[in-house]
Structures are given as C-alpha cells and as structure tokens.
C-alpha cells in the first residue's frame, strides 16, 4: 500500500516535471516569437527590395535609351518659345495654302502666361485663330496646323460665310515643357 502511494507520487512529480519543462520551453519560444517574426518580415522585405533592384538595374540601360530618345524627339517640339515657333510655321502654312490669318487671340489664365497644365506636366497656351480663304484652302490649312514642329491640338473648327469671304475660327492648344525649378 505504502509502495503504491510512493510510486504514484513519483509518477506525479515526473509528470509535473515534464509539464514544467514544456511550459518553460514554450515560454522561451513564445516570448521571442514577436522579435523573430519582426526580423523575418524585415528580412523578407529587404530581400524583395534587392530582387526588385536586380530587375530594375537589368532594364535601366534600355529605359535610359528610351528616355533619351523621347528627350531628343520632344526637346524641339516642347521648347519654351513654342508660340513664336508656331506662328512662324503658321505663316508658312497659310502662304502655302493661300489663306489669310485675320487674328490670333491667346488665352492666358495664369500669372505665368499660360492657360493651364496637363497631368503630364506640360503647360499649354490656348490660341484662337481666325483664318480667311477658300473652303478647300481653309481645310488644308487646318489639316496642317497640328502636323508642324510643335505639339498642337486642334480643339474645334467653325466655318462662317461672310461678305468678306469664308472665315474659319479655330481654337487650338499649344504645349510646352514646364521649366525645371
């Protein structure tokens, strides 16, 4: 009877010891887990940054070439004196198609002298042209307005017959590069 009791107590002590050991191990593990988790997350993040760097750096040469190509293409078309350049081209255009420029009116809503800015960072100047000429010649002039050395958007066209001839009213938008700050 006494031996049974003794062995039961010892079994109980050993079970308690095992439970205590598991509890201690768990305590150590779970107390460190937030730190380990944070470190693992950081490690994964830096690995992602490094991998994306590798991808970007492998394509940067192609991107630079593409950017330089666009820069060269648009350096002339988006230069600061776009208005003067457009007027010179317009003069050649109307001479070629035997039409007359009756008036040009610029809309400048900002203090810096342009009408607004596009979402691509280009400034635009809005001009309204009034041209006079024969129907066919006016249409040829209008068709050539947007194909010159500037980026020109022909917004609309109104043709009106008057005593002095056929008059076209053409609102256009000229784009120029915003100067670097």
């Amino acid at each position, binding site marked *: 009877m006494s031996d049974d009791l003794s062995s039961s107590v*010892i079994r109980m002590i050993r079970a308690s010891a095992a439970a205590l050991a598991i509890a201690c191990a768990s305590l150590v593990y779970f107390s460190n887990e937030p730190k380990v988790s944070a470190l693992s997350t950081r490690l994964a993040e830096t690995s992602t940054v490094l991998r994306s760097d590798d991808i970007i750096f492998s394509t940067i040469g192609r991107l630079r070439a593409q950017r330089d190509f666009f820069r060269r293409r648009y350096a002339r078309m988006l230069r600061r004196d776009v208005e003067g350049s457009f007027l010179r081209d317009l003069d050649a255009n109307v001479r070629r198609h035997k039409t007359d420029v009756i008036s040009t009116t610029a809309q400048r809503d900002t203090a810096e002298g342009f009408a607004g800015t596009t979402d691509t960072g280009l400034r635009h100047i809005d001009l309204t042209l009034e041209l006079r000429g024969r129907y066919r010649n006016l249409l040829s002039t*209008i068709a050539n307005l*947007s*194909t010159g050395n500037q980026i020109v958007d022909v917004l609309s066209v109104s043709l009106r017959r008057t005593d002095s001839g056929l008059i076209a009213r053409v609102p256009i938008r000229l784009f120029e590069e915003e100067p670097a700050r």
Partner: protein
Amino acid sequence: MIRANLLPRPKETLSFFGLRFDSEYAREAVAALGLSVLVASIGFSLETLRIVHLEGDVAEQERAVDVRSIEREAAKAVALETARYERIDRDAHIYRSSGNAIAVQIARIGNRIPSDVRLDTIEHAETGFTINGDARSIAAIGNAMTAIAGVPDIRRADLVSIDADRSSADSAAFTANLLSSPEVL
C-alpha cells in the same frame, strides 16, 4: 547462525520550514526542476542563436539596400521620366492627327451638300456639328439632310428649324444638328 534484518529500511526524511518530506520525493522534485531549467536554457540558447543569426542577415541585407539607394533613386527617376514621356508621346500622336481629323470630317459633310443648298456656317460642337444655310426649296433641304445622314462619321442628322418666311421669297434658311459617331468624338 546468520541473522538478517528483513524489516524495511526506515525512510529518510528532509525537513524544510518544519515540514517533513520523503528524501526520495525531494530528489525527484529537484531532478524535475533541474530538467526544466535545462530545457529552458537549451531553448533560450537556441532562440538567441536564431535571433542573432537573423539580425546578422537583416543587417547585411540592409547594408546592401543602403549601398544601392543612390542607384535606386536614379533608376526610379529615369523610369518615371520615361513613363511621362511615353504618355506625352501617346497624347502627341492623338494631337498631331487632330487638325486633319476635323478637316476631313468637315470635308465629308461639305462634299455631301447638294449644289442647290448653300451652307453659311459649320460649327464644331461637343457632340458633333451645327450647320446653318439656305436652299431654294424645302425639298432641297430634305435632300441635304438625307445626304448628310449618309456621312460615315455622322450618327444622326437632326433638323432644328426651317425658316421660309424671309425677305427673299425663293429661299428657306435651315439649322441642323449633326451628331458625330462616338469613336469620332
């Protein structure tokens, strides 16, 4: 004659704070505590090693990230600038055809107008065009409307008004709205 004491040995006891414990139980309890401490120590050491190893890896990678930061910023600037130019290029292609597109639309309308109808104005509006003109008869205006309705870019030609009550009795003025096809707008 051999004499043997067959009685069980009396149990050794330990006394703590006036309480008496069987020494065998005490040994078991101490061993249990020792085992727990050992397990906790091994666990702690392994965890510390793991953390130190991770911290080392993180520090090494962060150094690599920092070393590339200038190059990365430069690459980002190039990528953003290229993307901006690509958008400008797309827009520019549309703009460069805008003058020709409108001229062609007006020409298509003008070419359909019969010779006995005279157009005074063609105004480009948000939804298409508004035209004004005059003709020798209402029938001629009807023919003009039918002809304009056949222009490929025009979805609908709506007559707004005809005014035949004018000083010159042999002409009728008219106004019409021409709705452009959605893909033209």
